[in-house]
């Protein structure tokens, strides 16, 4: 098709949106509301993921040394730890340091520990941080197998729970997003069906004077896409503004909650809602007009 025909079709789409002003506003609002929820779900999921990440980063492996380990064996273990993939960093905690820490923890009740200095039952240990929480159990196994390591300990249950939560969240948000997408397509299809129905005579005339299906369809698809993209961008922008506000409020009153920075998530939210709007508008209009083209 030549460019003047495309221009004509675009003009038709805009004219129709203007003519059915009420419908246009209604559909844009519908799309906007659905995509607003979608954007909110996405933002929320990002924050849960971040929360889990922060919590996971604090989990570490503690590997207790056997009392028999001497200077040389200690250095050998340190060399071996450096070789193990997945270990981000480790720190050696000597018996003395362990005792020191314990005293600190007891604080003013330090008196309870009187006399313990001479025996010091605390073993020396390594505190190991891993690169990925999912590597925890693997690294723990490997470290435990080293000679000179008596016992390995990490908060297995906490880690498992965190992994479960993030996985469930991811799955749940996919469900919500797909469900919302279907609902929105349905709503858009319905509004476009109404416009198409209102224009069925016009469509029939177009077809009778020799218009191809595409010449009828393209303006209607453009119409749907315009509705979708405007609703999507509006939803994205509202989301961005609201999240920026939430971030500001929460981070000043509850700074210990690790929220995702607005600039890290807002662009993605806008892209997602606008993109979803386009797809939804396109699918919605194609689905709704099939019947009316059979002339």
């Amino acid at each position, binding site marked *: 098709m030549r460019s003047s025909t495309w221009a004509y079709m675009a003009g038709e789409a805009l004219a129709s949106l203007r003519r059915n002003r009420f419908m246009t506003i209604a559909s844009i609002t519908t799309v906007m509301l659905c995509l607003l929820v979608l954007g909110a779900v996405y933002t929320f999921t990002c924050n849960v993921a971040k929360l889990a990440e922060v919590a996971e980063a604090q989990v570490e492996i503690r590997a207790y040394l056997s009392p028999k380990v001497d200077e040389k064996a200690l250095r050998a273990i340190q060399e071996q730890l450096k070789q193990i993939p997945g270990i981000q960093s480790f720190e050696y905690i000597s018996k003395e340091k362990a005792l020191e820490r314990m005293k600190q923890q007891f604080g003013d009740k330090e008196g309870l520990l009187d006399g313990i200095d001479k025996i010091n039952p605390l073993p020396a240990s390594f505190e190991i941080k891993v690169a990925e929480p999912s590597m925890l159990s693997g690294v723990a196994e490997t470290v435990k197998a080293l000679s000179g390591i008596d016992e390995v300990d990490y908060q297995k249950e906490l880690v498992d729970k965190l992994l479960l939560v993030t996985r469930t969240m991811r799955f749940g948000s996919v469900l919500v997003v797909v469900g919302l997408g279907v609902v929105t397509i349905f709503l858009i299809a319905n509004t476009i069906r109404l416009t198409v129905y209102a224009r069925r005579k016009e469509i029939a005339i177009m077809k009778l004077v*020799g218009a*191809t*299906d595409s010449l009828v369809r393209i303006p209607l698809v453009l119409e749907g896409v315009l509705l979708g993209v405007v609703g999507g961008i509006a939803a994205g922008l509202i989301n961005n503004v609201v999240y920026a506000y939430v971030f500001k409020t929460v981070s000043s009153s509850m700074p210990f909650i690790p929220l995702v920075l607005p600039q890290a998530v807002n662009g993605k939210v806008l892209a997602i809602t606008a993109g979803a709007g386009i797809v939804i508008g396109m699918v919605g209009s194609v689905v709704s007009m099939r019947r009316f083209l059979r002339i």
Partner: protein
Amino acid sequence: MGPLIRFVDVTKVYENNCTALRGINLSIEKGEFVFITGASGAGKSTLLKMIYGEEFPTSGRVIVDSWDVSKIPRKKLPYLRRSIGVVFQDFKLLPDRTVFENVAFALRVTDASRLAIRRRVPAVLELCGIKDKSNCRPDELSGGEQQRVSLARALVNNPILLVADEPTGNLDPDTARGIFALLEDVNDMGTTVIVATHAQAMVDHMRKRVVTLRDGILQGDEARGIYRA
């Protein structure tokens, strides 16, 4: 070259089991002017609709130019329709567009250039005598004027064939005469013209070929005939 239009044993039964046409055999040559007459419900509109593919025969074949309309694929249908100009009994004009746009519309669907539209539309409006109404919308026109717009739209693509279904349905005799004169002019320029009509006086006056239908059966076919119902 064979005839422009050929109906071979055409029968049309609508979904409600109403038989509109029965065993029609008919040939129309290029350049002919043909009246289709018959009482209301005789099947005139049904016959015309099968020429431009709005309805399809239940059995039999309809051939138009090089197309077998009875078996035409959906994708090709628009191209058949573009080579046929149709004047509908109820005009079928787009209500929210100007006369110019209504006529230009039939050109646009053919992916015509802007230039072609700017040249061709005024020429056709001039031919049909409604150039001064270019910027009016259909509801600002009289019935006769609307019929001329409809005719202009049918002619704008330079069709090989013009099909008109009761083009003077509710027009006064003078206006009707004007429309028929126009149809005759179009025919003189080489376009084949087929007109379904009840306008007895005009049919009798013009002495063209008259095909008469009765209850879906081809009742008569006279070369220089007069109106029969």
